[in-house]
């Protein structure tokens, strides 16, 4: 479907003042006596001392799109600190540590662990009563309450926030683990 309209530029919010009037910034700019370099310098000084007064309708950004950005900013969280948990694998002599926040999906987490321990690991699927790849091993974790849980049941964010340590468990032991 081709729409005949272009989705155009966007808009600013209304600011205090009569509709259509611009503020001091306009008179500054139309003052041709000031050279361009002076204007720039003046602006730079201004931005540190006083907040620049917004000009109505500039930049030409529709309020609709501007509001999206504000909403998105509020719910964004920059992942700055790591979140390392111990990982053990049944039969392996050493434990490892991984940064849970680094992984964007369960698939990525699994791949990283398989690489680390050089062994395929499955995510346990109730339906088949078996792991995804027929491996002997299954990924489990200890949550905040101290219970051992199967990895994959809850959304990734929830898992990351409640996981205290990981254990790559032998499949035969995992069968004893029920889910709710």
């Amino acid at each position, binding site marked *: *479907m081709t729409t005949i309209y272009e989705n155009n*530029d966007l808009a*600013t919010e209304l600011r205090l003042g009569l509709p*259509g009037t611009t503020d001091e910034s306009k008179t500054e700019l*139309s003052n041709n006596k000031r050279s361009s370099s002076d204007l720039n310098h003046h602006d730079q000084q201004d931005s540190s001392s006083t907040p620049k007064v917004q000009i109505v*309708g500039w930049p*030409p950004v529709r309020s609709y799109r501007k509001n999206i950005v504000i909403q998105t900013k509020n*719910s964004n969280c920059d992942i700055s600190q790591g979140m390392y948990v111990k990982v053990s694998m049944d039969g392996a002599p050493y434990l490892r540590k991984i940064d849970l926040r680094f992984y964007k999906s369960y698939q990525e987490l699994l791949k990283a662990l398989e690489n680390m321990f050089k062994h395929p690991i499955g*995510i346990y699927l109730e339906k088949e009563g078996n792991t995804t790849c027929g491996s002997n091993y299954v990924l489990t974790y200890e949550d905040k309450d101290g219970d051992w849980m199967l990895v*994959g049941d809850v959304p990734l964010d929830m898992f990351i926030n409640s996981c205290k340590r990981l254990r790559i468990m032998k499949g035969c032991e995992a069968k004893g683990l029920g889910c709710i």
Partner: protein
Amino acid sequence: MNPTLKKPRESVDLSELTQSTFPDEVLEKVLSLVQSHKDRNSASLVCKDWYNAERWTRTKLFIGNCYSVSPEIVARRFPKIKSVTLKGKPRFSDFNLVPENWGADIQAWLDVFAKVYPFLEELRLKRMAVSDESLEFLAKSFHGFKVLSLLSCDGFSTDGISSIAAHCKSLTELDIQENGMDDISGSWLSCFPDDFASLEVLNFASLNSEISIDALERLVSRCKSLRVLKVNKNVTLSQLQRLLVRAPQLIELGTGCFLPDLTSRQYAELESAFSNCKNLHTISGLWEATYRYLPVLYAACASLTFLNLSYATIRSGEFLKLLAHCPSLRRLWVFDTVKDEGLEAVGTSCPLLEELRVFPADPFEEDIVHGVTESGFVAVSAGCPKLQYVLYFCRQMTNAAVATIVRNCPDFTHFRLCIMNPGQPDYMTNEPMDEAFGAVVKTCKKLQRLSVSGLLTDLTFEYIGRYAKNLETLSVAFAGRSDWGMQCVLEGCSKLRKLEIRDCPFGNAALLSGLEKYESMRCLWMSACSVTMNGCRLLAQERPRLNVEVIKDENSDDSADKLYVYRSVAGPRRDAPPFVVTL
């Protein structure tokens, strides 16, 4: 030709010739195949026969300025209209420069259409004032109504949409985009009758209220011809998955919220749903798609031609990975949060790119320098030689960069550059940006639309007047030095149709230099310039076929704060509010 068989000369009766060789039915049949309204306008000027044949066969009406003509005049001329496109307010109303209740009300049109075009099927409105009562009137007056598209309109609420859903039994398109509307509730979606199944296009991405996901699922299941579905941000990923499995035939998809809330099985199911959508050409939405879950899209990206990330403040890391899966991209809309690195990736990953729009995530944030710079733009131009349309918001630019860009991409038809700090010079040389736009107009012979910004002297406008011979739309802000600039444009740009100017030192002399020009244009907008009421009155006197309107401030002085001039065959507006002075 054999000279002995030469025919004797006789006088030929031309009217006989045309009558006997070209019956009306043939003319009408041929003209009914002409779709473009511009071609039809030309055809109607050939002679009376063609004018009549054309008016009887026109079914689609395009009116770029609703006040240039009246509904009565339209109804008299065209008896068989099925589809109407109407545009109302001046474009700067998108940026709050036009007060509320300015006009462009649809009701006067609907009243006439209801009498003359009871079989009207399509109505596409842009920047019109539309009330709930009008929507209800529309829904009940036109029984075969199929297509409603509302873009940048205002004055209605979701109640009006409910009327449409409830009464338009043959509806195929409902497209509600970025309107100034009252989002009361999502119950409108549940107003579609249970047996309603004709929908092909549904776009409610810009509505905020929650709809019933069950109702939407059932609707999507019934509408087998659904090809465009754009949901709002209240639809979660797991809900989206259920919609996708019911509509794998979609060509355009606007997702809901992309916040991570899936179990690993749900993730796998969503991935599978996307990979089953073999026909997707357009993806938009993607709210909150910061870095998680974008990979579910990858399977559907191979045939993607339009990726609209202008609702997602995506960062360069995940953007790069997504782009690697979109080699067929022709149109890309994105926030400047992807930064120059992101745009470099565009240059390397998207060789077929024709359109790029980069929107500012923080248009009013001045202290921190972020977003994109000139090097991002240059990088795209280097890798995407087919670029024709660009909209670019940035905080710094150089003349040299723009010259490089147009050397790389000489086929620009639309060049809209917004350097966000008004009157900012080339940041490396401190010179005006005249040479940048000079390069654009000299190199891009097909340029139709230009938006300029930065520190500009009259030289920019000299260049535009001299070289931009195909220019139709020009937007100017905080630029120029004297009347001479505007005069150059009015004299030189023979194809100019729309000129919008704000905050420039152009006065009466400039305004009046366009006396010969304005009747061949759709409109002129000048706000916060140096034009006075006297100048406007003079224009109105000299050109009675122009509507010269001034939107007055509360000040009683002589300055014409906002001037809007347009040609019209309908005479001065009869519905002008008190703050609009018609001269």
